[in-house]
């Protein structure tokens, strides 16, 4: 049995991860550590520890980091020091320096570091990666990507806190598509242009709308609409789409297309019924912790994606494209 815990209940994904860990046959879900009392109230899955030291003392092989983003570095440093493997929520950190430090501290300690990019485990996106490898649409020329959602402050206010999250819609949503594109292309972003605004939820302290253009080494161009532009009454949290133009054709990918549309009691809802990429991601992480396979997504992947999101802020303030 692999003993796995969660540090932090700040992130909306903590509950889902805990449920998966509690359900996996070969995993002993040790519990969660969360010093903030208000976040612990109502939590029922597994044991709750007051701080990360207590969780570490309870003997864990691996931990999923679900703190707010600016607390990732402290948690990962502590875990690495204790020789514990880490699956860290995205974005890796709020600054390039911290993100790099997260990677280095794990390297030095010789612990595994995976970034939580569940889209790597989404079947339609895996098929997209295969199509690109097989050149089904020829050589890739361009991507058009969207990752739009409702403002996530319903889940936790810190998602729209410039210090805790390091920004708003750009920090929240650019990294997923950048990671998919890097994975599919096997090439790196070299230049970024971004325009952002605060038209959606103008009271927010961070940008809520943004369109980011990324140019990859090798010339592929891509745009990412990261806006929190879904209204409060949108049928689901949001979604992610990517369309790929190649020299021989075009294909569109929607990893959340497997859903029912339901009209019920005055509301419209979309019910996901498809594959759960979070479960596959955690199974993959646990397998890597056990030494069954190398990590398919590493801390470097998290660092590279974070660099692009942070470059987008530099571009938005300069009004010009910037190098990554």
């Amino acid at each position, binding site marked *: 049995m692999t003993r796995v815990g969660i540090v932090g209940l700040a992130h909306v994904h903590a509950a889902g991860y805990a449920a998966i860990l509690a359900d996996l046959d070969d995993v002993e879900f040790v519990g969660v550590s969360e010093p903030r009392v208000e976040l612990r109230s109502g939590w029922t899955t597994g044991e709750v520890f007051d701080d990360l030291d207590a969780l570490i003392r309870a003997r864990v092989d691996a931990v999923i980091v679900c703190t707010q983003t600016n607390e990732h570095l402290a948690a990962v440093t502590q875990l690495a020091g204790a020789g514990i493997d880490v699956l860290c929520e995205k974005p890796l950190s709020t600054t390039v320096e911290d993100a790099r430090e997260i990677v280095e501290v794990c390297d030095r300690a010789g612990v595994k570091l995976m970034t939580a990019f569940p889209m790597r485990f989404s079947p339609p996106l895996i098929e997209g990666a295969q199509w690109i490898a097989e050149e089904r*649409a020829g050589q890739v020329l361009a991507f058009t990507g969207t990752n739009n959602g409702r403002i996530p402050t319903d889940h936790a206010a810190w998602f729209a806190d410039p210090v805790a999250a390091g920004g708003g819609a750009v920090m929240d949503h650019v990294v997923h598509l950048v990671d998919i594109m890097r994975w599919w292309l096997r090439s790196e972003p070299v230049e970024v*242009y971004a325009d952002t605004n605060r038209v959606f*939820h103008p009271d927010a302290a961070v940008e*809520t709308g943004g369109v980011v*253009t990324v140019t990859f080494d090798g010339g592929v161009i891509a745009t990412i609409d990261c806006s929190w532009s879904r209204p409060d009454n949108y049928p689901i949290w949001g979604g992610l789409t990517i369309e790929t133009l190649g020299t021989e054709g075009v294909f569109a990918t929607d990893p959340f297309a497997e859903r029912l549309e339901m009209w019920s009691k005055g509301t419209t809802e979309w019910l996901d019924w498809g594959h759960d990429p979070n479960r596959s991601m955690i199974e993959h992480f646990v397998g890597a912790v056990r030494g069954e396979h190398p990590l398919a997504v590493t801390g470097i992947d998290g660092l590279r994606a974070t660099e692009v999101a942070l470059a987008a802020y530099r571009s938005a303030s300069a009004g010009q494209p910037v190098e990554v």
Partner: protein
Amino acid sequence: MAGVHADAWEATPDRIVAVFDPDRDRSSKLASDYGALVADDFESLVGMVDVVDICTPTHTHASYITAAADAGVDIVCEKPLARTASEAHEAVAACEAAGVRLLVGHVVRFFPEYAAARDAVMAGDIGAVGVVRLDRSTYLPAGASSWFSDRSKSGGVVLDLMIHDVDYARWVAGEVERVYARSAGGGDHVLATLSHTNGAISHIQGSWAYPRGSFRAVFEISGSDGLIQRHAAVQFEASVETSDDVSDVPQPPSSSTESPYVSEIRHFSSVLHGDEEPRVTADDGARAVAVCDGIAESLMTNRAVEVGP
């Protein structure tokens, strides 16, 4: 486009009385279809009509507009208004000086789905406009209309195709102050970001690099209070079979309503008869060209470009 416009004029009280084209076979054919005369040159054409409808290649628009204005004739001109912003401004100035109407064929304003979305935005249904996503993806025009692919004449995909959505973006989100764009596929696939003066952002995909036979025109407008989506009616596959009956010039998907080209020309006729105010002004036509000039400059310099008036 001349044939489409000529058909549309049939739905108005106005009549096509004369046709001019440097290719006399073409002008004779169109003239005979509509019982019109064939003019020997542009000067004699404008001497025979109240209104001239210019459907020539883009790079010739400005000089025909100026000549028509000098002759005191009202003008309908297919979009884009001119090949460059400076030519467009000169053409508009010539029309103002001559006191003639200049109506620009930004037909997307007459597509019912685009007009309905704009009406909803103007009614405040989605609050302040935040991000506008516009996508017009099709294949490279070919055959007899190959001047389209000569960028010096048509302005390429930016000025010929993307301008539809540039004009629409201005219509729903106001003036554009800055643009940035990248291209792929030999310049036939362009992704542009438009920054509007009110803070709204428009993302426009304009492509002549999509599979032959395909034409997708879709949009999404998100605001502080809501969201409007127009989904694609057609799903693309990784490749499509080419077929011999594909039109040389891509045609947008049609709807069950009156052809937008007919709606457009009927509106123009009404304006020219003094019954309606123009939905598209000459200035709109010139500003759309100016934004496209900015996009073209951004593509060349890889810099964000401030858009002039």
